[in-house]
Every structure is written in structure tokens, then in C-alpha cells.
């Protein structure tokens, strides 16, 4: 069953790929490279040792920012969702953080703290954190009142509440924050690298942009997308399936 599911996705991929191939072959313009061209750009970057190195550097930044943004943003969001006072007081700050342009935060942090790794990662965290908070705030708001009372009467410990009461209710919101979060963080990391780092995918992408080397741009993009797709297949989708087991339509027993 899992295999046939994978099969569907592989077919979908192949369809996309052939569509692209056909269109790009017909157009035949270096600005819309064919899959083959992108692949050769990919293997060039790989052989010249830039691809893996840039990817690792960027992924490290993405990972660190992701962990911090999710933890802090999640905590903040849930507290805001549960406690009206917290929400009222912090809401304006949240709106400001949410809407302050990424560029502004990045520049200010770079200028104030210098072009150091910490400034880069902090900038990404500040950019992503309010999104997580906004998402998990809705989760916190929708907590089931009756189950909450139950956990009180049956003397659930804090740990039990966390694991068995709150986590499952927050789960869909956490998945939203994770999926759109990974994407957002990666995009911001690109900008951060563009503005003040000398390595990483963002740096390479922009060099390619200046030479208008669309094949290389796409090569780097797809390399990262592949990583995300693997995360999706081997971490997120199994989690999804696991979490939907208990639902009416879900898996066995």
C-alpha cells in the first residue's frame, strides 16, 4: 500500500518532468533550459564541489533557525491562544514582527552585530517566529475544553497533558508551521546569504542570477527541493499517517 502510494507520486513527478521537457524543447531558449541542461548544470556544480558544500552550509542554517523558530514561536503562539491577556498585550508586537520586511531585519541585524553567522541565523529566526506563533495561536484557541476538564479531574501530570492532550490537538497546526516554515526559512536564508554571507545556496544562486544562468539557478533550487521532498516522504508523511490512524476514516483498528 505504501509502495503504491509512492508509485502515484513517482508518476506525478514523471508527468511534470515530461511536460517540462516537451515545453522547453519546443521553446528552445536558454532561459527555459531543458531538464537535461539543468541536470548537466547540477552535475557540473556537483563535480566542482560547490553543490554539496553549499547545500550543507545552507541546510545547517535552515535547521538551526527552524528549531529555534518552532520552539520559541510555538510556545509564544500557544500561550497567546490560551490566555487572552497575553494575546492582547503581545498581539501588536506580533503584527509588527510579522509584517516588518525581511530585508529590514536582515540589514539591521547585520549592521548592528556585524556580518556574523549569529546575526544571519537570528535574522531568519525573527522572520519566521511570528508565523509559527500566528499558526499555533489558532491551535491554542481551539483546545478542547471538555478534554481539558477531564485531564484536570483525572490528575494528568504536566508531561501527560503535553504528550497526550495538547500535542495531538496542536499536531495539524504544527504540520502547517513545519511545512510552510521549512519553505519560508529556506527562502529567507537565501536572502540572508545573498546579503552577507560568502557561502551557501543563496550565494551561488545569486551569482548564477547575475550571469543569468537559469539552468544553474534551477539546479540549485531542485537540489534543495529534493531534500525537502525526502523530508516529506520519510518524516512528515509517516507522521501524518500515524496521526490520522485514530480518525473515523483512518487505518486499522
Amino acid at each position, binding site marked *: 500500500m505504501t509502495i503504491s502510494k509512492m508509485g502515484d507520486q513517482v508518476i506525478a513527478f514523471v508527468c511534470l518532468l515530461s511536460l517540462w521537457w516537451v515545453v522547453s524543447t519546443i521553446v528552445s531558449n536558454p532561459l527555459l533550459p531543458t531538464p537535461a541542461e539543468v541536470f548537466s548544470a547540477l552535475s557540473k556544480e556537483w563535480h566542482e564541489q560547490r553543490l554539496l558544500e553549499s547545500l550543507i552550509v545552507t541546510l545547517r542554517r535552515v535547521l538551526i533557525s527552524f528549531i529555534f523558530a518552532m520552539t520559541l514561536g510555538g510556545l509564544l503562539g500557544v500561550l497567546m491562544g490560551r490566555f487572552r491577556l497575553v494575546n492582547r498585550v503581545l498581539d501588536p508586537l506580533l503584527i509588527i514582527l510579522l509584517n516588518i520586511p525581511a530585508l529590514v531585519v536582515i540589514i539591521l541585524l547585520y549592521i548592528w552585530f556585524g556580518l556574523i553567522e549569529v546575526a544571519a541565523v537570528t535574522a531568519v529566526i525573527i522572520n519566521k517566529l511570528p508565523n509559527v506563533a500566528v499558526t499555533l495561536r489558532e491551535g491554542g484557541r481551539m483546545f478542547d475544553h*471538555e*478534554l481539558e*476538564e*477531564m485531564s*484536570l*479531574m*483525572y*490528575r*494528568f501530570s504536566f508531561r*501527560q497533558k503535553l504528550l*497526550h*492532550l495538547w500535542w*495531538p490537538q496542536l499536531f495539524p497546526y504544527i504540520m502547517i508551521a513545519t511545512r510552510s516554515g521549512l519553505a519560508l526559512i529556506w527562502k529567507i536564508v537565501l536572502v540572508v546569504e545573498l546579503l552577507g554571507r560568502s557561502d551557501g545556496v543563496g550565494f551561488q544562486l545569486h551569482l548564477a542570477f547575475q550571469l543569468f544562468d537559469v539552468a544553474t539557478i534551477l539546479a540549485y533550487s531542485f537540489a534543495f527541493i529534493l531534500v525537502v521532498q525526502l523530508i516529506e516522504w520519510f518524516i512528515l508523511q509517516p507522521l501524518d499517517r500515524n*496521526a490520522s*490512524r*485514530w*480518525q*473515523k476514516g*483512518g487505518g486499522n*483498528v
Partner: protein
Amino acid sequence: MFEFTVEGLELSDKKILAALNIKLNPGETHCLLGPSGSGKTSLLNVMAGLQQESIVKNVKGESQNLWSQRKPDIGYLFQQPRLLPWRTITQNLLLVEPNKEIVMHRLSEVRLQDYADYYPAKISLGMARRVALARCLLLKPELVLMDEPLTSLDLPTAREMRKLIKRLVCGHPTRSMIYVTHNLDEALELGDTVSVLGNAPAEVIYSNSINSLSREELETLLKH
């Protein structure tokens, strides 16, 4: 002896409970009868401490001292099962009592040993109620609150569960119970004392020993 006094309860500007006093000796069962919507569940919630704000708001002054002495240790069987839907039945029970053997034993007492690994969405309502009953019976409180534990059960099963409650709760020398039901047989069998709630403006129309009442008198009180 537990003594519970509330001067009234309003929710969203509607009077839910009139002034009310319930005395309960250790080991005794007090039955709570009354028409649908008369405030039985609300009363249990107040006793369990789940309506804090409202009480503080509406019963000024010494409102904190709802219980004459300290608040007893309470176990509460809700009117609805309130199982965690994302945990199997056994997992639900294990959260209350970590000893797996005790849990499986309780589960077999409510005749659900075969459904140990089912998720709540995949068992019938009557079964879910029995799981909730089993969960409540895993606690060892001084005071048990039960809100219509035996509805949605067929007669033989209900009778068996009644016996189980009688054995585990009523049979316990120091464990008291407040038992809400619409079923007079249950009330007469389990109760030592009884309160009958009237209809609107939710007040107590009778509160005393249940043995001093005949079944017919009780029925007439309820028809009120």
C-alpha cells in the same frame, strides 16, 4: 462528613442553581434526581471545581468555602465519555493508572477486554461509556461524582455495571458518591439519601434519606 453549600450559580446571566446544601457521610451515596436541564451536571461541575470563576462572581463573600471543611479528593465520571480520541482504550486508561494489570482487569470487568487496542472512534457509544466508567473506577478518591453512568446500556449490561459500582464504590467504607440518574431503580438501589431538583429556577424540592420515600412518592415528586 462532607458538607457542600452553594448560594446559587448564574451562567451568562441565567440562573442555573438555587441555594443548595448537601450533607454526605463517609461511605454514603447521595442520589441526584431532576428533570432534564435542571442543573444536575452544573452542580457536579461546581462541586468538582470546574466552574470557579462563575461562582466567585455570583456567590460573593465566603464563596470560596463551598465545602464546610477542606475540599474532598474527587473522582468525576462525566455525562459524556470524554476519552482521548487519539489514544487507544488501553492507553486512555493507562494515563490514569500506570499499572497495566489493574487496567486490563478493570477493562474485563466492564466486558471490554477484547477491545483493548481500539481507538474510541471505533467502538459503540455504550462501549465508550463503559470505558469511561472503567477509567473512573481506577481512581481511589474520597468522593465519586457520577453523571448518569448507565444510560445507553442494555438492561443486563446496565445491571452488571450497577453491581460493579456497588461493589467498588458503595462497598467501600469511606468512599462517598453523588450519583445522578433518571432511573428510579438505580436510585433506590444505590442511594442512601436523595435530592430532587425542581424545574426552573433550579431549586431543590426534596432532600433527605431515600428510604423514607416510596417509589410512588418519588415518581410524584419528579412529575412536579
